[in-house]
């Protein structure tokens, strides 16, 4: 048993901090929350790529460092907590890369993994469709093999990260005639192909993170396929675990918690009993969540595949983030409903942003309802009927 990082890992952490201290552009420092998914800064991604800090655990021949997933945890923790704008490589590093590493051809690995580790390729992720949300397997978008290409028709929705992306990593129905789970494939498609239309969607924070993507007779080469055709449903489970297991599911608002504690202390509110207790309780809940997240990274570092553990960590972490932003608006009182980015406003409106963003956490990457079912059936062995 051991609950601290190794001295090497602590040195690595210090190195990352020092780097980020210098390299995060000032405009991203003011509001560090959610910058892993909102902060678009390809320059920083390229610099991180030069440091070897993308695809850290991947084989060296694709630009990785063959470091452990615990080292990667240290890295992602620092990136998320510092508010580094790393969105342009996040999906590639977190889930698309691992998916290609697991199921891609050597050629795909050379092309994509190398591009990801250099910080040069950005991916959008196309899962949901209007009629296929929690019930992803009912997806209808078709990619039909015709000669030397797939012809893609249909629509994705809530597509994240697509508007600056080079490729969309997606699931599509490649065999419409077999039962729903069995005709699905993973594809990586160039977003600049003719016939792809992207329509940004404004969410309640006022930002445009998500999109609709329409495919109208898009012709994508056959090597867009990742892994085995019609086997995508079984391939993506692992990719989803990667999507769910990261520190960002718990720590997107960690800077806000840290700075609220600081604000409370400076404003002399630290002796207000209910504020003390609320913050202490949040701290306790955060620490528990941290261990649930660390457990997943530790399993990966041991070569084990997280299963229900990733679902549990995401379910817990995202619920915590909602309690956190709710509690902080309450601590701020009337200032908790003021969004001005002004030094006159405690925490410059960050609590409002957090409160508006947080409903998305328990929806994206698997709703909490779906995740609890995964823990119950995969983790605890409860029957499905």
């Amino acid at each position: 048993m051991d609950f601290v990082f190794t001295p090497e890992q602590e040195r690595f952490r210090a190195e990352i901090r020092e780097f980020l201290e210098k390299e995060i552009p000032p405009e991203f420092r003011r509001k560090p929350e959610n910058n892993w998914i909102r902060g678009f800064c390809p320059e920083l991604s390229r610099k991180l790529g030069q440091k070897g800090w993308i695809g850290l655990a991947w084989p060296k021949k694709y630009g990785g460092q063959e470091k452990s997933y615990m080292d990667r945890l240290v890295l992602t923790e620092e990136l998320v907590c510092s508010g580094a704008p790393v969105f342009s490589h996040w999906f590639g590093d977190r889930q698309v890369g691992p998916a290609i590493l697991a199921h891609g051809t050597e050629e795909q690995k050379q092309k994509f993994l190398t591009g990801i580790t250099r910080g040069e390729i950005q991916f959008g992720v196309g899962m949901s469709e209007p009629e296929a949300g929690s019930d992803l397997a009912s997806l209808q978008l078709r990619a039909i093999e015709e000669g030397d290409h797939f012809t893609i028709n249909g629509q994705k929705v809530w597509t994240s990260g697509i508007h600056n992306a080079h490729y969309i990593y997606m699931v599509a129905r490649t065999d419409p005639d077999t039962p729903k789970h069995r005709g699905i494939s993973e594809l990586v498609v160039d977003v600049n192909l003719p016939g792809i239309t992207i329509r940004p969607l404004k969410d309640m924070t006022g930002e445009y993170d998500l999109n609709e993507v329409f495919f109208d007779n898009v012709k994508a080469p056959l090597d867009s396929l990742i892994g085995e055709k019609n086997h995508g449903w079984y391939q993506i489970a692992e990719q989803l675990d990667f999507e769910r297991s990261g520190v960002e599911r718990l720590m997107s608002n960690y800077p806000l918690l840290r700075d609220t504690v600081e604000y409370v202390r400076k404003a002399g509110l630290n002796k207000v009993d209910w504020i003390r207790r609320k913050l202490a309780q949040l701290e306790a809940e955060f620490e528990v969540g941290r261990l649930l997240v660390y457990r997943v990274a530790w399993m990966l570092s041991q070569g084990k595949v997280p299963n229900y553990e990733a679902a549990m960590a995401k379910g817990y972490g995202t619920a915590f983030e909602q309690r956190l932003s709710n509690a902080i608006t309450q601590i701020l009182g009337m200032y908790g409903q003021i969004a001005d980015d002004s030094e006159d406003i405690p925490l410059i409106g960050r609590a409002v942003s957090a409160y508006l963003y947080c409903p998305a956490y328990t929806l994206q990457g698997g709703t909490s309802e779906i995740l609890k079912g995964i823990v119950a059936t995969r983790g605890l062995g409860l029957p499905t009927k």
Partner: protein
Amino acid sequence: MDFNLNEEQEMLRKMARDFLTTESPKSLVREMVEDDKGHSEILWQRMAELGWMGLAFPEEYGATGGSFLDLAVLLEEMGRACLPGPFFSSIVLGGMTLMEAGSEEQKQRFLPLLAEGKVILTLAILEEDGQYDPKSVKLTANAEGSDYVLHGTKMFVPDAAVADYIICVARTGGSGSSGITLFLVDAKSQGLSLSPFITLAGDKQYRITWDGVRVPGENILGEKDNGWIYIEKVLQKAVVGLCAMMVGGAQQTLEMTVDYAKERKQFGRPIGSFQIIQHHCTDMATDMDGARFITYQAAWKLSEGLPCIKDISIAKLWTGEAFRRMTSLAVQVHGTLGWMDDHDVPFYYKRAKAWELWLGGADFHQDVVATEMGL
């Protein structure tokens, strides 16, 4: 015991719902969020014509003479519609203060204009610390001849940019609740400057700087140095009025969510047939009924002049939390669709949080309840 509204109130509710459905659709609400002042004069005048502004003021001031409960019914529908504009500021905060504190002459002069929608009021209580505490009133009003000169800053003043008059809670001496005086101030007075906040829910609130604003002594509302007692009474009504708005918003949130759960299919069946979605909806419905009854109870008691300080704080405590919980579940049941700006759910999600914090959050009202319990 009677849980029903009376027939007139049911008619008022129906009329208000019909009117607001067509006249204050979500497209207007959205437009008013984007608008600088958040106020539609056309809508305002139409509401005035319906007699809504004067609904709860006595007939001798050219008004309808309805009860506070009648007003609460109307406010509920306004909350359901997310009605933009200064109704709450002008009629509840401003008008009720005028009723409580104004002299007969002041009432004769202003209430008819208020009831016709020709004058808009607002009320400036809070300062930097954002606390509803008389000790927090630091803005000074110093006598100069028969005038008073006001210096200081008021925060979170709603709809001040469209108000003709601002009732300012100022310190004329002492400390704590004594030495506070209310001034009815012309919003165009020299030395008075507004700076808008960006708010969570898109309503309009302002920081007002008072830099030597001169106010005639005759514009004092109520007894000098004894102004806080009026504010206490007005806050009671305002809290219940806000609860009524939350009840309306909550009802709409519940209905939207249940409707969606019936329609939306996943895994080959309506999501409302899944046990956990059913439980989410039941939790919402329970919060809803609780919020409705606890709010009605407070509104009815206020209307009847019965003692109800504890009831009011319980109403705010419960309704604020209940509405907020409901809107969180509403997004969850709607999925990402309910998180999108062009959906109606965010209107309620945002208002629920703002209104939970307005007029005292849970911490404030828990303390009132505890004190009323003798703790």
